[in-house]
């Protein structure tokens, strides 16, 4: 799977790049030289779109988000947001950059010592000098957007997993970010919460005019809501395309992923000696 990624959509990537808000160009990253987590990733997210990055567990999806936040820097290549390289930013610029980002963590990462209201108010209080009444109204609006206005005075521990995820979503959009990043937003949710969160991500993207990147392995839910999908395996983009073309694809990896087969290009067995040798 080291060949050039299969571009399955009719529109070539270059055309979409014209209005690209987020761009990864030949990005490689590894904590040590010999073990690369990402190698030569090219990824483009046009303004206003909802793009999914998919792949099995541990394929480096989350690393892409951390690169975008400026928490880590690529070993090779460039991460550009609005044409500016994230790696070249100073500490202040990175903080300014992060203020325009909203990120939803895998399990919500709500602050356990604060109420729901204070959680959503947290980024507003930290970055603005708004009076308390205004903050209260803003928080209730955000909570209303995710349907949880009534939970304002509860502690995160009193919420179900699905509700906690929605509160985290409200916190993510508290400062009306330009770019929203979602790290496994569907992990550990029941089917109803899952589709609620999915619909909400799409709605918020369109209503607030955000650009969103969704890192997930939930192909079924993603296909319902996203505009464009990248498949990543072993640190490389191995397939990309819009939803209809993914559905129609004959690429063996995409097929295995979409149909959920246990064995295929991604092997069921961890590399090992031949069976006969181990049981000799």
């Amino acid at each position, binding site marked *: 799977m080291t060949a050039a990624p299969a571009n399955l959509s009719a529109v070539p990537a270059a055309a979409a790049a014209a209005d690209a808000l987020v761009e990864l160009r030949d990005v490689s990253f590894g904590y040590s030289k010999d073990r690369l987590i990402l190698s030569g990733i090219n990824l483009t997210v046009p303004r206003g779109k909802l793009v999914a990055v998919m792949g099995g567990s541990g394929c480096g999806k989350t690393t892409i988000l951390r690169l975008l936040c400026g928490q880590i820097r690529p070993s090779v290549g460039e991460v550009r947001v609005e044409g500016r390289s994230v790696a070249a930013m100073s500490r202040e610029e990175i903080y300014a950059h992060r203020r325009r980002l909203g990120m939803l*963590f895998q399990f919500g990462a709500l602050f356990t010592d604060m109420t729901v209201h204070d959680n959503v108010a947290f980024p507003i209080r930290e970055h603005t000098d708004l009076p308390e009444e205004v903050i209260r109204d803003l928080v209730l609006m955000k909570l209303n957007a995710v349907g949880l206005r009534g939970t304002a005075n509860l502690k995160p521990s009193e919420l179900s997993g699905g509700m906690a995820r929605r509160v985290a979503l409200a916190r993510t959009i508290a400062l009306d970010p330009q770019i929203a990043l979602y790290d496994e937003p569907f992990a550990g949710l029941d089917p109803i919460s899952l589709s609620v969160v999915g619909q909400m991500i799409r709605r918020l993207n369109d209503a607030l005019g955000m650009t969103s990147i969704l890192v997930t392995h939930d192909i079924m839910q993603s296909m319902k809501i996203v505009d464009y999908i990248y498949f990543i395996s072993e640190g490389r983009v191995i397939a990309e395309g819009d939803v209809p073309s993914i559905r129609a694809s004959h690429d063996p990896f995409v097929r295995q992923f979409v149909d959920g087969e246990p064995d295929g290009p991604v092997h069921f067995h961890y590399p090992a000696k031949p069976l006969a040798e181990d049981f000799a």
Partner: protein
Amino acid sequence: MSMLARLLRRLGRASIGAIERLGFVTRFYFAILRQSGTSVVRPQLVVKEIYQAGVLSLIIVMMSGLFIGMVLALQGYETLARFGATESMGVLVALSLVRELGPVVAALLFASRAGSAITAEIGLMKTTEQLAAMEVMAVDPIARVVAPRFWGGVISLPLLAALFSMLGVYGGYLVGVQLIGIDGGSFWGQMQASVDWRYDIMNGVIKSIVFAFAVSLIAVFEGYDAKPTAEGVSAATTRTVVTSALTILALDFVLTVFMFRGGIN
């Protein structure tokens, strides 16, 4: 021979590891100092941590102080009675408490009650990505989470140590004067004549301030440095208590040598 070499190699590796860790702690300490502006501008953050570290440790520290003072009086009476010097009981109790037991035992109790809680809390925030979430929200977790807890501990411990000593003296008074029947006048009078507020009490306070910095730093560092797993956090909590205890006792020795060496020669 090869076993000796292996032993030495292990010793070497352990030493390098320890020095490396000391380096991390030092850097972390300066990072806390650099990021303490938020704690000054928003004292409410520190007040909340004083509540967590100080107010919630009040009961255990005060009870322990009272009991240790009472035991000191009982044991002291035994010994002093042999020399017919029971009226020096006040001196014995007060000096033991303000110079040694107050700062040291209060710090040990603080490390196990508040220090471990701080480590567990920060470790858990790291495990559940709350610290990472803050960072992505452009909020420095050292400024917002670590520094207030550090300063909360630094402020709380000296006050707790003073309360410990005070209740210890009171406990000594209860047993010595009320129970055993030593003359109250000579109990207080001898104490005041022999305890110097600069030499004995201020040095005790300085000790507890030094311990406060050490224990608070260890607690926040172990939490921040914890492996983001359940085992990692529990191991870090244990390390906080063990490292704090050893550090307190070692520092106590060094400080005592410097402060009270006038009494030795």
